[in-house]
């Protein structure tokens, strides 16, 4: 079954993206992706722009509301996601614990919902 690891960053962690390619911090992420691929569990992933780049839209009583910034104003913000093919939540927890993002921010694990997608919901 497929799990999404949702990676949450603090503002400091978002800042780390500006580091040079050779920085150990980025090296840890590259090594993590390599380990996922070598273990044959990697399905796909992507990073998101910083939360300041977010714009949120709602429609309420026929009126469009647009807000600068992310949906929720919390310190740690969604920074990216990785989709993995794994046998169980136990193994998803194991991979989440190894994620460099878990040492500073947080990693949320959600099973994908292929049934909801098939019936036409979200994404």
């Amino acid at each position, binding site marked *: 079954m497929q799990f999404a690891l949702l990676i949450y960053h603090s503002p400091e962690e978002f800042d780390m993206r500006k580091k040079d390619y050779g920085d150990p911090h980025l090296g*840890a992420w590259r*090594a993590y992706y390599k*380990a*996922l691929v*070598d*273990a044959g569990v990697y399905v796909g992933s992507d990073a998101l722009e910083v939360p300041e780049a977010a714009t949120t839209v709602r429609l309420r009583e026929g009126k469009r509301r647009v807000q600068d910034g992310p949906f929720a104003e919390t310190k740690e913000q969604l920074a990216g996601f990785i989709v993995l093919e794994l046998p169980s939540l136990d193994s998803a927890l194991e991979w989440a614990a*190894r994620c460099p993002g878990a040492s500073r921010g947080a990693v949320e694990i959600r099973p994908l919902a292929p049934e909801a997608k098939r019936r036409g919901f979200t994404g």
Partner: protein
Amino acid sequence: MNDIHQEDTQRTIERVARESYGRLVAYLSVHTHDIAAAEDALSEALMSALTNWPRDGVPQNPEAWLMTTARHTIIDLIRHHRVVAESEPTLQLLRENTMEPGFSTQFPDDLLKLLFVCAHPAIDATMHTPLMLQTVLGLDAARIAGAFLISPKTMGQRLVRAKTKIRSGGIQFEIPDRGDLPGRLDAVLEAIYAAFGIGWDDLVGVDQRGQDLAEEAIWLARVLVQSIPGEAEVLGLLALMLHCEARRAARRSHDGRYVPLSEQDPKLWSLSLIEEAEHHLATAAKLGRPGRFQLEAAIQSIHAERGRTGRIEWTAIVEFYEQLNRITPTLGRQAAYAAAVGETYGAEKGLAVLDAIDQDAVSTYQPYWAARAHFLQRLGRTSQASSAYDRAIGLAEDAAIREFLIRKRG
């Protein structure tokens, strides 16, 4: 009552709860076979202590007070939940067992029985340590779930299931007789060592709670040494844990960096813990019944020797690992054996040992990749080394170890 008194009372309750938890649960569940009820009764007793003690003062024997209060609760519980005829003998026992004044210094027979129940062969082996952590040491399910990296809800359900099995599955609260003892004792020792291992790995040396768990495991092993004297492996386990614990302060540099064992400063090791470990190991050796914990303690003892001699007897370590692998060749031991072979006979030989390990089993086993990277680097096979380092870095969970490997990778 003033604030200082309030604070003192609060602290007394916390201390009594911590020191007596396992003994009280053990005492309460030995007669009822109902660990969950014993835990509920005890937490209710602790709640009443929180309201009564600040008002009435701390009783002379706080443990006895908790015991009496919890016993009343449990008698009520049993009355409510069970058919009277079935529970009558249990109730009688609970009423008869009045609190002995010397309870806290008593031979902890009940505690021992509880340990054997937690590691009973009828209970799933993966639940032995979690049960022990909860019933004997009083850890909550969420904390245990974190240590075992499973969701708190799942851990809670598994604990409930295990306790139900103990209550209704006819598992006896008893100390096994001499014939069964070695096998049953092995399971108890494994569970204690697993608890120690969690305390050890838990953000090593940084996390106070991790240290607590390691200390609790050592405490349990000391209780076992006192209550079942003359068991070589019990002594071996205690010696092994004391040797590791002796090095706690040396495992991280002042700025939080990971320091591998062979590079630790022996001046930071605890001499008194090492001496205690050596004493237990020597006592065990005289019994002439070697086993896995004694062998592992012996390996740690050789590492400790470096504090006196300045060098490590790698050949002896290799021999001990060979004996260990003959008992049960776990992945961890095979990787450690390879590392010792590499130190003794060169990186080429070490690599050969690693190559002989089942490749499917090691695909996500971090220590294997760290050892492999180390050997490849020493052999000058740079690109293979950096690929193996990447694998070890990617599989590492501890940020300090990750950084250590990134530095070594270069």
